[in-house]
């Protein structure tokens, strides 16, 4: 096979995904995200939808722009590792999230000097509740 023939066959074989279609899907999903964000849906539903849409976009990028769909499955397994580990990390954080004392009370932060709050009145630093005496 001549070099030219090799290049020609290479060109024929290299029919990648339709990147413009992927781009359009990503743009549409971003638009839907902004739409969901702007609607008055209940907070839980809104959060669930936004996370699902973000993952859909991330999967599109990984599968087509990063060519995971065309690679060997072993590479996809490597790529999934961080997702699995971060999921475990979230579960490992759960005991901390559910046993914090200060989340179980109506936690009101006393502002002793309003001037210190500046232009950020609703974001005071979280204060750890005192450790209860045993």
């Amino acid at each position: 096979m001549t070099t030219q023939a090799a290049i020609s066959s290479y060109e024929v074989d290299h029919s990648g995904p339709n990147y413009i279609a992927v781009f359009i899907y990503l743009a549409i999903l971003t638009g839907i995200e902004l739409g969901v964000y702007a609607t008055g849906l209940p907070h839980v539903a809104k959060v669930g939808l936004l996370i699902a849409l973000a993952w859909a976009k991330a999967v599109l990028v990984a599968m087509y722009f990063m060519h995971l769909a065309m690679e060997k499955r072993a590479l996809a397994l490597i790529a999934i590792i961080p997702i699995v580990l971060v999921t475990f990390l979230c579960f490992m954080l759960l005991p901390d999230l559910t046993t914090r004392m200060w989340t179980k009370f109506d936690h009101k932060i006393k502002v002793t000097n309003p001037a210190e709050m500046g232009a950020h009145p609703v974001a005071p630093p979280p204060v750890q509740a005192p450790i209860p005496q045993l």
Partner: protein
Amino acid sequence: MSEAAAVKTHDRGAVHADQLEPSLTPGNLGKLGMWTFLVGDAMTFGAGIAAYGALRINNPNWPTPADYLGITTTAIMTFILICSSVTMVEALDGVQHGRQSKFQTFMALTVLGGIVFLGMQAFEWHHLIAEKGMSIQRDLFDATFFILTGFHGCHVFGGVVYNSVLLIRGRMGKLPQAKAGLVEIAGLYWHFVDLVWILIFTFIYLI
């Protein structure tokens, strides 16, 4: 060693030699190396976002991000990064098919997209710091915002430098079709940066 044992050992060795994975070659070493780096980087971002979620859930006084952060600006930034991912795959297509002018045009657009993104982020940070008084030292809302978006911004900066080096190599005629793999590896990094921003945009800005 008995003769039977020697044959058995020999047989086992022969089977293993046939079944071994092919050695890492220059053709696949770079891609595997980049994927390994990206997996580690994804863990760092994942741990950062998980920590952000834990801190936020634990704090009943956490503000609504949209009250402070500009959603319109960051939506445009998201769109620019998605566009730059498309220009990156077009640049790869150009170099893969030996079309240097296509490669250089689209790689220049990719670099431009990264620079515009960084410029908009600098504008956003300046607005938040100078006009809204946000600071990394003030509270956890501010600290997590600056750390996560700043870490991502550092990645974009790294990507701009990385892509610029490839663009300069292309202009110097040192990126022939045979080295298209270098652009594919750079593309993996750039698309990962896009992917992470998609998640940061949702978790930090929209939710």
